[in-house]
């Protein structure tokens, strides 16, 4: 099977099959990265980002010189595209609230406990939204999308140790913010 650089060379010379194979290989990780930046409220937008990314890549593939991995290049484009879109959709009402999704999955024993949990989850979601983009993305990839540290490192284009430090720092910050809001993390 052709590797990415052979497929890129094919796509650069106008081979649509080669480009289709690149799409097939990279569409899922591109979507995961986009969704990790935009969050659960904007899943349809993440798919739009994935489409925009591939259209951009198709348009600019001739300028790709192979100095970096094709995957790193496309993930960098995805990150920027998703962050730009996020800035635009920030004030739009989301399709589904993050805590509603959670509540639908985990029934709680009583209404009082359920309300408490919902409040804490809402506070946590709010705190997460104030973190730097890379921390948010690393958290969602790791805790929601089930990505391992190595996958997060590839998608964010950083070493594994940096991902571990992002996660550690994000947990510390969240712990502090929740404590300030009067919630316990135990």
């Amino acid at each position: 099977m052709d590797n990415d650089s052979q497929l890129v060379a094919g796509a650069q010379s106008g081979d649509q099959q080669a480009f289709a194979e690149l799409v097939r290989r990279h569409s899922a990780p591109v979507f995961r990265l986009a969704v990790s930046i935009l969050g659960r409220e904007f899943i349809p937008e993440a798919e739009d980002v994935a489409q925009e990314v591939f259209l951009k890549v198709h348009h600019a593939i001739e300028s790709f010189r192979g100095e970096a991995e094709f995957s790193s290049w496309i993930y960098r484009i995805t990150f920027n595209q998703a962050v730009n879109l996020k800035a635009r959709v920030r004030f739009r009402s989301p399709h589904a609230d993050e805590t509603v999704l959670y509540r639908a999955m985990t029934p709680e024993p009583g209404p009082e406990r359920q309300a408490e949990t919902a409040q804490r989850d809402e506070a946590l979601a709010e705190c997460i939204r104030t973190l730097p983009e890379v921390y948010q993305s690393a958290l969602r990839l790791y805790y929601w999308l089930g990505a391992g540290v190595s996958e997060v490192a590839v998608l964010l284009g950083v070493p594994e140790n940096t991902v571990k430090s992002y996660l550690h720092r994000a947990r510390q910050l969240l712990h502090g913010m929740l404590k300030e809001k009067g919630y316990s993390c135990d």
Partner: protein
Amino acid sequence: MDPRDAGIDSLLRRSLAAPVPSLSPDFDQRLMREVRRGSQPLDRYGRILLAGYGLISALTCGVVMRSRGLDWGAITVTIIGPLALIAAARWTRRRTHTTMKHG
């Protein structure tokens, strides 16, 4: 992992647990349709329209510059020069790519 980290870790695991989304099954086909549509060369009507627009723009620029007292040589260089530069840049880039691929 220290106890403080463990507490927030388990809270995050519980709180962020939700169905993992995936791309629509027809994403690849839809995207490739868009790609093909975007990379289609202009049809005959489009080419005529673009050429007509270019010609009228060049003529208008020429007439305006002439009315400002420029001679025809300078007008020709001003209009043709940038077009020639773009063409040369494209040609150079294409040549570099071909050399890199075969080199």
